[in-house]
């Protein structure tokens, strides 16, 4: 009896499973298509592309477009390639991610384990910042940056992204720490640990999954941001803005192969972060909601 039901369960399972896999593969191919186009065209001479062979593999393989995109291509008026902007982006993204994550963790810790009168209001207001569109804050932000003397600099961009990111990172850590047993904090208090010792020795060591979430989220958002970079970047514009300038440059012929190479270069760091930390990402997203 039991064997019979199991048998049918397996065979119906096989049919649906095949169907699901076919659908998934079709979608995966569909989504991978642009990457394929970018990939093959970034290693072709321009003539092959303008000859109308977008989909074909290159007849002559070349890394020339990559080298050009990296160090010699015309960005705006300077033939610098994307290299200096890549550096700008790195200098912006690393401190911005680090600071916003640490502040978010501290906020989450205070909001759950050192509760004070009106803490839910504070959290509510911070959450509110997640829903404010970028465009609204452009002008006030410009004024503030000007007053601080940070306009058009990398530290200015770091500040902007930290301020904008804290709402999200606080949300992540607050929800994660809400499920963290308060008895542990009390035990540590009785053991004589102070505010930062509890944070450092008790909370942070078990915050791995949510830190991965926060870092991935912040990294992709800050790295991919265009609006703030274009508005406040000044002379230290990030990669995204430079890529736009590369692609939009109006002089001479459009070097599609260089554009493709540049676009992949701009996407590589986020890709890298996802591959390294991605498998913790889903785990961390679930951690706050499901205990155990």
């Amino acid at each position, binding site marked *: 009896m039991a064997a019979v039901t199991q048998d049918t369960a397996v065979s119906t399972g096989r049919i649906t499973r095949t169907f699901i896999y076919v659908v998934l593969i079709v979608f995966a191919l569909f989504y991978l298509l642009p990457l394929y186009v970018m990939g093959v065209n970034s290693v072709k001479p321009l003539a092959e592309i303008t000859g109308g062979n977008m989909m074909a593999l290159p007849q002559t393989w070349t890394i020339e477009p990559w080298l050009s995109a990296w160090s010699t291509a015309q960005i705006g008026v300077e033939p610098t390639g994307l290299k200096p902007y890549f550096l700008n982006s790195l200098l912006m993204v690393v401190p911005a991610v680090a600071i916003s994550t640490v502040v978010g963790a501290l906020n989450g810790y205070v909001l759950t384990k050192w509760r004070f009168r009106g803490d839910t209001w504070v959290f509510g207001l911070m959450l509110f910042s997640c829903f404010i569109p970028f465009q609204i804050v452009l002008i006030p932000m410009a004024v503030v940056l000007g007053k601080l003397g940070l306009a058009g600099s990398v530290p200015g961009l770091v500040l902007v992204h930290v301020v904008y990111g804290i709402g999200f990172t606080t949300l992540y850590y607050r929800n994660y720490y809400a499920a963290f047993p308060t008895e*542990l904090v009390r035990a540590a208090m009785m053991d004589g640990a102070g505010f930062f010792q509890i944070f450092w020795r008790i909370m942070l060591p078990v915050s791995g999954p949510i830190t991965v979430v926060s870092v991935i989220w912040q990294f992709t958002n800050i790295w991919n941001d265009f609006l703030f970079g274009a508005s406040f970047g000044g002379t230290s514009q990030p990669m995204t803005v430079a890529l736009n300038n590369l692609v939009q440059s109006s002089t001479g012929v459009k070097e599609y192969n260089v554009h493709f190479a540049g676009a992949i270069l701009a996407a590589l760091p986020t890709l890298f972060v996802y591959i390294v930390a991605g498998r913790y990402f889903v785990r961390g997203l679930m951690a706050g909601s499901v205990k155990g």
Partner: protein
Amino acid sequence: MGFLDIKNVTKSYGPVEVLHRVDIAVQEGEFLVLVGPSGCGKSTLLNMIAGLEGISGGDIAIKGRVINGVHPSKRNIAMVFQSYALYPNMTVGQNITFGLEMHGTPKPERDRALADVAKLLQIDHLLDRKPGQLSGGQRQRVAMGRALVRNPDVFLFDEPLSNLDAKLRVDMRTEIKKLHQKLKTTIVYVTHDQIEAMTLSTRIAVMNKGFVQQLGTPKEIYDTPANLFVATFMGSPAMNIVPATVEMQDGAPHARITDAEGAPRLLRFSQANLAGWAGKDILLGIRPEAITDPEGADRKSSNIQSFANRVTVTEPAGSDTFVTMTISGKDAIARMRADATVAPGEVFDFAINMEKAVAFDPATEERIPA
């Protein structure tokens, strides 16, 4: 003045007062158990002693020093939490010595203290494991080790055994008792299990709705409960409470009750002063073990009354047989020897030890003093 003084302590959350004027003086080396139903304020009181909750009114003092505003870590108190609260990222050894480390104890001294405690609790072989790799009983030991290593003035336990299975709970209960007999540290222990309270304590505070109902030795609590709540809360099965009227006969007060058929019966009280209640209604309290078969009756008692009554249900429980009958319209339970031959539906000749009977004022629910 005691070792740990809880003087007139109240606790309010906003307008709601959850603890009302609690007054307990704990002597050095005492094992005080706070027992009561869920939500009666046991944990709140314990957390106030620990310094994890503020004190709304009154004082708490240790060795005569008022500690109301003192930080938890500076009260020289250690606590074992219900969930054990072991730090998941640290090894057992690190868990136990964390408090010493935070108090700036040098490493060699910490290691020595750890070795002592590990030996005492027989957890030497577990020191390098993480809490996640331990069984419930082992975690319990580690949690106690963490408290012990600090050599505190007072130990606090908040329902430390409630996460263990029945067998282990009994073992650990014995272990805690042994530990207390050996170390003689002052302990305040919270539980809602009245058997734990009876077996472990030197004194019990029975709490209900934020009031201490009675404070006394296990024997006092059991034999002379202050009121109906204490009488029915402590003891399993609970004390039988049946309505009765006090009637004088031959110059002695008797309890007039009815048997299963509704026929009136008289049971002579041992307490002569109940004569003052002649003609009045009372509530008669008799523990199940005070109603037995005649052979099983307490030989030392000077007041065994025989009482024939019809049996409704028998429940053999291995060591004892519980027999249910009707007295004054209420169900009453008798605790008989396992080999007593009782059958449901039959009339059986019970023996009631009236020396152990207590009487309550139905209006105030207080015990009428003997």
